């Protein structure tokens, strides 16, 4: 990694190492939390559909690095990574999946409807593309209040096919809204590959540019690349109040809406999955850190163990409470 990549204070080895350690921990938290989710799923107490983020951790971890507490994040159906990278309480997320009142959405939303205003997540829609408008509107609100917060929106490649994408980017560009669009291009939308949804050569960044929104494509499996782009761009959005799009190219390892892997299905080959696993974002960073002696193998294992213990404890707690029954009821609206 070149010096150029980490300017402004993190060029110092001590800061850089803290910085990378934090990114590593965030990615590991997401990974280990979701692996545990997958493992516990057959027990039946996590009673909602889950869209796992495994394989894409570098995007959330890289972007959220440069967001401040008062900034806003709009997530989507694949929300766990964004929530955890924003510092969201994993216990509340697990509780939410178990349908408990102590869940971040009071047990009413499940995995697809995360609510964490303390992390700037003001509610989550699982309707593909709709969050793009919500986050853009948060940007409008920020602008109208003359604040200098940023509204970051995570969206998939599939979401760029919805009208919301074009309409929202057009408006954000017109009104110069402080919005960061983070398109996580995993080339998949459910069991559909991007080649069957877009003519070849269509470029998401170019679409954004044609609407007057600047854009950049980054390696979404390299947290340092994502963070580097995020640092400059978020600063620019904050200073100039303008929208920006980052396309992070990455890949989802697990089934679309499934706690499990989906080897042997028609839309992708095992070979493709294996190739992407070689580009594992966590392995990439960990290798870099060990090779540059920022971290030892022992320390890496120790960090993994600490997080694993934390996650195990969370799910144990949930299991116990869940057994002793949790009731949630939604108020009905009068008519």
């Amino acid at each position: 990694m070149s010096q150029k990549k980490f300017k402004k204070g993190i060029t110092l080895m001590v800061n850089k190492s803290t910085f990378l350690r934090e990114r590593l921990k965030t990615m590991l938290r997401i990974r280990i939390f979701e692996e545990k989710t997958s493992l516990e799923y057959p027990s039946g107490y996590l009673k909602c559909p889950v869209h796992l983020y495994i394989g894409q951790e570098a995007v959330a971890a890289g972007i959220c690095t440069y967001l401040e507490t008062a900034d806003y994040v709009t997530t989507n159906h694949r929300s766990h990574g964004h929530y955890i990278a924003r510092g969201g309480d994993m216990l509340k997320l697990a509780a939410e999946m178990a349908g408990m009142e102590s869940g971040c959405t009071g047990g009413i939303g499940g995995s697809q409807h995360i609510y964490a205003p303390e992390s700037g997540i003001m509610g989550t829609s699982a309707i593909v593309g709709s969050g793009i408008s919500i986050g853009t509107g948060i940007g409008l609100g920020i602008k109208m209040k003359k604040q200098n917060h940023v509204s970051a929106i995570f969206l998939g490649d599939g979401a760029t096919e919805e009208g919301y994408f074009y309409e929202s980017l057009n408006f954000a560009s017109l009104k110069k809204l402080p919005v960061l669009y983070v398109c996580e291009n995993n080339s998949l939308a459910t069991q559909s590959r991007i080649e069957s949804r877009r003519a070849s050569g269509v470029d998401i960044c170019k679409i954004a540019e044609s609407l007057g929104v600047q854009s950049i494509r980054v390696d979404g499996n390299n947290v340092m690349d994502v963070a580097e782009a995020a640092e400059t761009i978020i600063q620019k959005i904050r200073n100039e109040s303008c929208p920006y799009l980052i396309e992070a190219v990455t890949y989802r390892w697990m089934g679309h809406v499934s706690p499990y892997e989906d080897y042997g299905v028609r839309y992708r080959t095992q070979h493709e999955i294996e190739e992407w696993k070689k580009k594992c974002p966590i392995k990439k960073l960990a290798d870099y850190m060990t090779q540059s002696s920022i971290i030892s193998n022992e320390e890496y294992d120790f960090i993994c163990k600490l997080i694993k213990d934390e996650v195990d404890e969370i799910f144990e707690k949930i299991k116990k409470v869940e057994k002793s029954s949790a009731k949630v009821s939604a108020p009905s609206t009068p008519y």
Partner: protein
Amino acid sequence: MTREITYSEAILEATTQLMEGHPEVYLIGEGVDDFNGLWGSTKGLYEKFGDQRVLDIPISENALTGIAAGSALVGFRPIFTHQRIDFMLMCMDALFNNIAKWQAMTGYKQNMPFTARGIVGRGWGQSVQHAQSFYPVFAHFPGVKVVAPYSPYEAKGLLTAAVLAEEPVIVIEARSLYSKKGCVPEDFYTLDFGKGEILRDGSDVTIAGLSYILEDLLSASDLLKDKGISAEVINLRSIKPFDMDILIESVSKTGNLVIADITWDCFNLASELSCRVNEQLFTEIKRPPLRLTLPEMYVGASRESEENYYMSAESIAKKIFCWLDQPMQKRQALQ
């Protein structure tokens, strides 16, 4: 002080007072800044409050509805206007997959103050796509309030209540009522949701209706009076929540219920309320309720096709007279 102003002036006055008293209220929609100001209902607001609070928009109703909702999540109270209600079908996803459900999707922890104004453009050859009043589509969804002001007094009080509500409200306005005058207090006030109003006392038959049809119902009740029939005319005013109490009380007295609607025959307020009154007053009512609705077809532009399509005071009075003329056996209580 109370004085006579028009329906559109009442809307304008409500909006002005809301914007003066509440910095978080803003107006958004196609043409809100036009020189004629949506037939007077937003006239002068652009000049008074500027382009930060009176936002003309690109022709992107769906995303802009989502964007307005996003701003509501950070403290704003948007009033989203539609020159014609017909265009609201473009925003069905934003309105009902998102806005209507936002409170539920956040575990009822996040409010969604969002007002949409939809104008029914009946008359003068508006033809197939520009003369609809499909409010039942909106009223179907839990989590949304729907009101249909008839008088200028209601136009002001209900819009004010809508904008100050913590949940989404859709206001159905009738273009044909815009120039009608009525007494309106100068002061700021709100009207309650879920409350109807007796426009005329009577003892033989209850005739309920909403919005523009009430003019015809009042004239029809005059015609019926000439025939010796005393009709009680009820303005339903609030579609959802609806006022069952006022209907039950009136029908308990008259034993006969007619409901006149402003939309097509199936799945509307007339069907809903006649069913409910039937359920509650099964043994008291003298005959099954009469529903007066628009035919299951689309209106054409020509004078003749409009005349055939819409009801008139004469046709309403005639139908009610014939209906009352048929002898009916009172139903027996079920053993």
